[in-house]
C-alpha cells in the first residue's frame, strides 16, 4: 500500500469537497446577509445541492473504486444514496423556508448545518470501515443535535435536544465500545477484512458477540429500532417540524445505507454467521413492527404518531435487511426501494403538515378536523400520503411493501411477512383516524386556533390580513353562523405546494410504474452486494 494509493483517485471525492466548501460558504454568507433576506440562503442551498447532484452524476456514473486504502467506496451504491440524500435535502429546505423565517432565529446556520449533515450522510453511504463509519455518523448526529434544539424559545425543543444528546452520547459510547471489541478480537476494522477474518477463523472469542451486540445496539439507536427507540417520540415531538421530517426521513435512510453496506461487505458473505444475524435482525424487526404500530394507536399528537409509525416502518425495513443475500438481490432491492418510497411518501405528509402548522400553529390530530373543507389540497395530500404509508395500491406504499414482503417471504421468513402484513393492517387504523378527522369531523370553531404554541402572531402574518383571521379574538363558538363555522386556511407558499405536488406525483407514479426506479435500485444493490 504505497502512499500514492491514498491520494491517486482523490478527485473522486470532489462532490464531497464541494459540498463541505459550500456549507462553509453558507455560514459565511449568513454573517453578511441582512436578516430580511435570509431566505436567499435557503434558495442558494437548494441550487448548490442540485448542482452537486448533477456534478456527482456526471462524474461518478459507472465508477467503482475505493479510496484511502479501502476506507471509502465510490460506487453505484454510494452514488445512488448521494443523489437520494441530496434530493431529500432539497425537498426539506424547500418545505422549511417559510417555517424557518417564521419560527427560527438563525436561518443561515440552519441551512449550513443541514448541508453538513448531508455531507455526513453521503460519507455514511460511502464508508466501508468501522471508524470512518462512526465519524460520518457523528457528523450527521451533531448537526442533528443542534437542529433539534433550534427553536431556542421553545422549552420542548430544548428538552428534546437534551434528551437526544444524552441518549445519543450513550449510544455513541456503546457503538465505539463495540468497534473496539471487534477490533480487539479480529484485529481489523475494514468491512471486507472482517469477513475474511471470520471466514478464516475456526473459533472466535465470546467478546466478538458482545462487540457485535454493542454495534447493533449503537446503530439500533440511530434507526430507532425497538428496544432502542424510546428517544424518538420525545425528540420528534419537540423538534421543529422540518427537523422532525428530516429525522424521520433522512437520518433513518442514512443509517440504513450504512447498515446495508456493513452487513453486505462484512457479514453476509460468511454464510454460517449470517444465519445467526438473520435471527437477531428478524426478532428486532418483529419487535419494532409490533411496538411501533401498537403504540401509534394511542397517540394524540401528529409528530408522535409519525414517530411511532416510523418505528414500525423501521421494523419492515429491518426484516428486509435480514434477508440480504449474496445469491439474490431481492432483499437489497426491496430495502432500497422501500427507503425511497417511504421517504417520498413521508415527505408529502410532512410537507403538508408543515404547511398546516405554518397556517395554524397546531399539531394535534384533533386540530386537523375539517381540514378537507378548510384546505382541500393539503387534506388530500395527507390522506394520499397516509394511504400510501399503510400500503394501499395504487400508491408507492403498496409497491414497496409488496416487493419487500415478497423478498422476506421468499427467504423463508413467512411468519415475519405475515406479521408485517398484520401490523400494516393495524397501521391503517391509526392513519384512518387522521383521515377521519380531516374529512368527517366538522371543523372546530376558529376561535381557539393558534393559541397553544406561541405562534399566533405568525399565523396572522401568514394570513395576510384576511378578515376571517382577525376576527379570531372576538368570536366565540356561540356567535358562529353554522354555515361559516370554519375558516379557510391561507394558501401555503409556492415552494411548499411544489414539494407536496411533486411528492404526490412521485407517490402515485412510483406506485403505478416502478420499473425505471427499480433498475437504478438494482444497479445500486448489485454494486454493494456483489461488487467490492
Amino acid at each position, binding site marked *: 500500500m504505497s502512499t500514492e494509493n491514498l491520494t491517486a483517485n482523490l478527485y473522486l471525492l470532489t462532490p464531497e469537497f464541494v459540498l463541505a466548501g459550500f456549507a462553509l460558504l453558507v455560514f459565511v454568507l449568513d454573517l453578511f446577509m441582512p436578516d430580511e433576506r435570509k431566505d436567499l440562503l435557503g434558495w442558494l442551498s437548494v441550487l448548490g445541492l442540485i448542482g452537486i447532484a448533477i456534478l456527482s452524476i456526471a462524474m461518478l456514473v459507472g465508477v467503482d473504486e475505493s479510496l484511502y486504502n479501502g476506507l471509502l467506496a465510490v460506487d453505484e451504491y454510494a452514488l445512488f444514496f448521494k443523489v437520494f440524500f441530496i434530493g431529500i435535502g432539497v425537498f426539506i429546505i424547500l418545505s422549511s423556508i417559510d417555517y424557518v423565517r417564521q419560527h427560527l432565529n438563525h436561518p443561515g446556520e440552519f441551512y449550513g448545518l443541514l448541508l453538513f449533515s448531508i455531507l455526513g450522510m453521503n460519507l455514511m453511504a460511502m464508508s466501508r470501515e468501522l471508524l470512518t463509519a462512526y465519524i460520518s455518523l457523528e457528523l450527521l448526529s451533531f448537526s442533528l443535535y443542534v437542529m433539534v434544539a433550534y427553536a431556542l424559545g421553545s422549552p420542548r425543543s430544548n428538552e428534546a435536544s437534551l434528551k437526544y444528546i444524552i441518549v445519543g452520547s450513550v449510544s455513541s459510547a*456503546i457503538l465505539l465500545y463495540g468497534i473496539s471489541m471487534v477490533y480487539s478480537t479480529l484485529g481489523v476494522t475494514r468491512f471486507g477484512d472482517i469477513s475474511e477474518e471470520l471466514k478464516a477463523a475456526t473459533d472466535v472469542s465470546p467478546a466478538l458477540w*458482545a462487540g457485535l451486540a454493542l454495534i447493533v*445496539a449503537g446503530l*439500533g439507536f440511530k434507526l430507532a429500532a425497538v428496544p432502542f427507540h424510546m*428517544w424518538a417520540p420525545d425528540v420528534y415531538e419537540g423538534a421543529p417540524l422540518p427537523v422532525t421530517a428530516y429525522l424521520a426521513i433522512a437520518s433513518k435512510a442514512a443509517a440504513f445505507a450504512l447498515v446495508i453496506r456493513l452487513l453486505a461487505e462484512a457479514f453476509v458473505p460468511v454464510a454460517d454467521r449470517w444465519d*445467526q444475524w438473520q435471527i437477531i435482525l428478524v426478532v428486532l424487526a418483529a419487535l419494532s413492527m409490533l411496538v411501533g404500530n401498537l*403504540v401509534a*394507536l394511542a397517540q394524540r399528537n401528529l409528530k408522535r404518531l409519525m414517530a411511532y409509525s416510523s418505528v414500525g416502518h423501521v421494523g419492515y425495513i429491518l426484516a428486509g435487511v435480514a434477508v440480504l443475500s449474496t445469491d439474490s438481490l*431481492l432483499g437489497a432491492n426491496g430495502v432500497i426501494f422501500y427507503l425511497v418510497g417511504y421517504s417520498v411518501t413521508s415527505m408529502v405528509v410532512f410537507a403538508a403538515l408543515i404547511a398546516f402548522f405554518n397556517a395554524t400553529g397546531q399539531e394535534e390530530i384533533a386540530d386537523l378536523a375539517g381540514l378537507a373543507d378548510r384546505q382541500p389540497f393539503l387534506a388530500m395530500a395527507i390522506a394520499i400520503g397516509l394511504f400510501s404509508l399503510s400500503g394501499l395500491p395504487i400508491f408507492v406504499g403498496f409497491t414497496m411493501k*409488496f416487493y419487500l414482503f415478497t423478498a422476506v417471504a421468499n427467504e423463508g421468513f413467512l411468519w415475519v411477512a405475515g406479521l408485517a402484513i398484520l401490523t400494516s393492517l393495524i397501521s391503517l387504523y391509526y392513519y384512518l383516524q387522521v383521515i377521519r378527522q380531516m374529512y368527517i369531523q366538522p371543523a372546530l370553531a376558529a376561535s381557539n386556533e393558534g393559541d397553544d404554541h406561541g405562534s399566533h402572531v405568525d399565523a396572522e402574518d401568514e394570513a395576510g390580513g384576511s378578515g376571517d383571521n382577525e376576527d379570531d379574538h372576538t368570536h366565540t363558538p356561540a356567535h358562529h353562523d353554522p354555515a361559516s363555522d370554519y375558516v379557510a386556511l391561507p394558501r401555503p407558499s409556492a415552494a411548499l405546494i411544489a414539494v407536496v405536488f411533486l411528492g404526490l406525483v412521485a407517490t402515485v407514479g412510483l406506485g403505478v410504474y416502478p420499473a425505471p426506479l427499480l433498475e437504478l435500485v438494482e444497479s445500486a444493490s448489485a454494486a454493494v452486494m456483489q461488487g467490492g
Partner: protein
Amino acid sequence: MVWAWLIPVISFAVVPLIILFGKRLPGKGSPLAILAILAGFAIFWVVFAGFLSAGPETEGCDIGVGTKVLTCNFQITWFEAGIPGADTSGFDRIEIAWGITIDPLTVSMLGLATFVALMVQIYSLGYMHGDPRMDWYYAFHALFIASMLTLVLADNFLLLYVAWELVGLCSYLLIGFWHERPEPREAAKKAFIVTRIGDVGLLVGILLLWSHVGSFSMSETFAAVAGGELSDGVVTASALLLFLGAMGKSAQFPFHVWLPDAMEGPTPVSALIHAATMVAAGVYLVARAFPIFSASDTAMLVVATVGLITALGAATIALVATDLKRILAYSTISHLGLMMLSLGAAGYTAAIFHLLAHGFAKALLFLGAGSVMHSTEELDVRKMGGLRKVMPVTAILFSIGALSLGGIPILAGFWSKDEILIAVNNHLNPVFIVLTLLTAFLSALYMARAMFIVFYGRFAEQFEHVHDAPPTMSITMGLLAVFAVLFGLVALNWPGAFDGIGYFIIYEKGHGLEFVIWLAAVSTVLAIGAFIYGYLAYARKSVNLEGARRKFAWPLKVAEGKYYVDELYQWTIDRVVMSLSRFVAWVDRALVNDVGINGPGDVTRGLGEKLKYHVTGYVYSYVLVMALGLVGLAIFWWLVSR
C-alpha cells in the same frame, strides 16, 4: 406507430388536471379534454399511416398466430412478481407488461372511438353549457374515452380487464351525472350492477385462461389455443365466460336491461356509450378473442343465438316504445345483437364493419335526439310532430342517420347489414336467416317510425318557439352524417388504392365484397317497404293503426311491457336475494362484526393504550431500557450461536 400509447395517455393525463384546476380554467377545463382527444385523433392518423405502411419485417410487427393478420406489439415491463430468475412461462414468476397491440381491429376501433369522442365532446360544449359541474363532466368524459382506448390497445388480458372496469366505472359516473334526481342514480346503479355480473364472468374467464396458459398475453394465449394446448372443454368454458362479460357490457339478453335506463344520463353521454365506448367494448372483446371463440363450435352457436334473440326482441320493443331515446336505446341493443349474431356466424369482418357503420349513425341519431330534447325538453314521441319546420338542420341530419341505420341502399348501414346477412346465410341454419331478415325489416320500421313521428306529419303547435341546434352541435352532427352516408364505400374495391374492408379487417383470410343478389334485393325491398309504410302510417296517418292495435293487443302489451324482464328481476331480488341478504347481514353483524372485528380490534387498541406507558419521558429510563436491551441482545445472540 409505437406512439399509439400516447392516445389514451394524453386523455388520462388531463383528468387530474381538470379535476384539480377545472374550476379556474376557461370553460371549466373543457378545452383541455377536447384538445386531448383531438391530439389523440391526430396521433391516430399517424398510427394508421404507420400501420398501413408496415409489413412483417417492421420492428415489433408479425403475422398474428390465431388471426393471420399483421399484428404489431410494443411493450415495456410494468412489474414482475414471483421468484426472480425463474422462467416466465411457468407459474413461478409472472411478468406483467404495459403492452399495446396494433392490428386492423385496433386501428378501426381507435379511429371510431377518437372521432366519435371528439364529436361528442365538441357537441357537449353546447349541450352542457352552463352546467355547474361541467369540469367533472369533462373529466369523466376524458377518463371514459381514455379507458376505452386503453381497452382496445391492450395486448394482455389483465390490462384489458383494468380498462374494462374503468369503462364500467365511468359509465356509472356519467349515467348518474345528474345525481340530484333519483332516476339517474337508480339507472347508474343498475348499469353498474348488471354489467358487474358479466364482469365476474370475464374475470373468471381470464383467470381460467391464465391458469392453463401461464400468461395474460393475448398473443401467447391465442397461440396456445391454436396449437391445441388447451382441452376443448377449457376453450369452450373460457369462451363462454368471456362472452358473459361481453353480454353485460354489450347489453345482450338477458343483461340488456341496463341500457334503456342509461338514457337518464346526459344525451351526449348516451351517444358515446352507444356508439364508441361502453357497448362497443363487448363486441370488441368477442372479436379480439375470436381465436378462442372460433375454436369452439358450441361457443359460436351460443354467441349467434344470444345475438339473434337480443336483436329480434329489442327490435320489437323499439317498435312500440314511446320515448325517443329509448327507441334509440333498444335499436342499439338490437344492432349489437346483430353484431354478435354475425360474429357467431363467423362473419368477423361484417360484425366490425357494422360496429363502425352503426357507431357513426347511432352517434348522429343520439346527438339529433339530444338536439330535439335540448330545445323542446320533451322526449315522448307521441307529443311531437312536424319538427322539421322549426329545426330543419336537425331533421335532415337525423333522417340521414335513420335511413343509414335502416339499411337504405348506398348508405353505410346498407352495406354492413348486407354483409351480416350473407354471413348468417352461409354459416347458420335457415331459421336464422329468416329471423335476421325479420329483424332487419323491423329495424327499418322503427327507425322510420321515430323519424316520421318526430319530424314529419302534423306540426305540434306547442313547439312554435323552438330553435334549431347551435353551431357546435349541428357541425358535429354534420360531420357524423358524412360518415353515416359515405362510410359504406370502404366496403368496395377501389382498384389501385384499397381492396375494400374485406381485405383489411379479416380473420384468417380476406375476401372481397360479397354480394348475394337475392339477399340484397330482399333486404332492400324490406327496408324501402318499411320506410314507405312508416311514411304512410306515421307521417300521412293514412294507415289505420288502431285496427292493428286491437287485433294484436296481447303481443303488443307484452312488447310494451318489455317482456317483463325487469319485473322478473325485481321479483327475484325482492324474494330470493333479499331474504338471503338479510341472513348474511345478520351473520355479518353478529358474528363477523361484533365478535370477529371488534374483538381483536379492542384487544389491539387496548394493547396500544397499555404499551404507550413504556415511554415515560425520563431520559434515565430510556438509557436503562437501552442497556437492558443490549444485555438481552447479547444473551440472545449467545444462545442463537450455540
